[in-house]
């Protein structure tokens, strides 16, 4: 959707406190997120779950310039007692994964 409207995106790597099947709980996750940023906020951020790269690591695509609001809202989101930590942000998925691997090594 973001691409169709010509919006530029940022990618955020999110880690959960426990392994969770986020793909099947996405609507509950976005409901919880909208509690803090509201429906207009959700429309502005246009968060999109891209993929998971591990049991606890997920990549989200966010409208550029709104990633900080997403990071903040994520601090308060709890899904079945699971918390979410934002680890990194980047302009491309490839560099996000590269940065994450570097961070894990160090």
């Amino acid at each position, binding site marked *: 959707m973001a691409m169709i409207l010509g919006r530029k995106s940022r990618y955020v790597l999110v*880690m959960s*406190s*426990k392994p969770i099947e986020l793909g099947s709980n996405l609507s509950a996750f976005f409901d919880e997120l909208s509690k803090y940023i509201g429906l207009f906020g959700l429309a502005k951020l246009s968060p999109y779950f891209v993929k998971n790269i591990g049991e606890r690591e997920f990549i989200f695509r966010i409208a550029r310039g709104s990633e*900080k609001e997403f*990071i*903040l809202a*994520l*601090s*308060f989101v*709890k899904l079945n*007692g*699971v*918390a979410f*930590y*934002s*680890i990194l*942000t980047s302009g491309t998925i490839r560099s996000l994964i590269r940065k994450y691997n570097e*961070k*894990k090594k*160090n």
Partner: protein
Amino acid sequence: MFYDITYFNVDKGLTKLLGYKKIYCIGKDIALNEDGDYIITDAQQLHRFKLSNIIGIRASKVDKELFSKIKESGKPIIIDISNLLSGVEFIREYNTAKNVLRNAIKMRLNVSLASFAKDEAHLVSALQMLEIAKFLGVEEDKAKEMLGNGYDIGQKE
């Protein structure tokens, strides 16, 4: 680099992934309201401990008299955001934390934030902590300074 304080031991791998230099564990690295070399004390119990052993003073409400005592002591004030992170009575907790922070900054105290997380579900990353500081009304530079120096044990040694 940022620091945090929790009630449980966070392993080094997760500490680095979360973007902290160190996460101090209460009961292991530091003591909370108990005698020891590195004490975090609640503002009301400031008088109980030797000043040189105190590394920070936890505050969760505004008390100007206590704040002026903290200022005299020269120790950093640590704002507990655990209630804010729990999500219960969010607006009330937000206003309380914002008030404490505003008053502490007004009185020119050395301010810091800490999650005081009881488990992994109440922990936040350094990126999130920075955004929370800004959410409470602090400018970006001040927020970075707050999370960087407030209760670095290394400074005491």
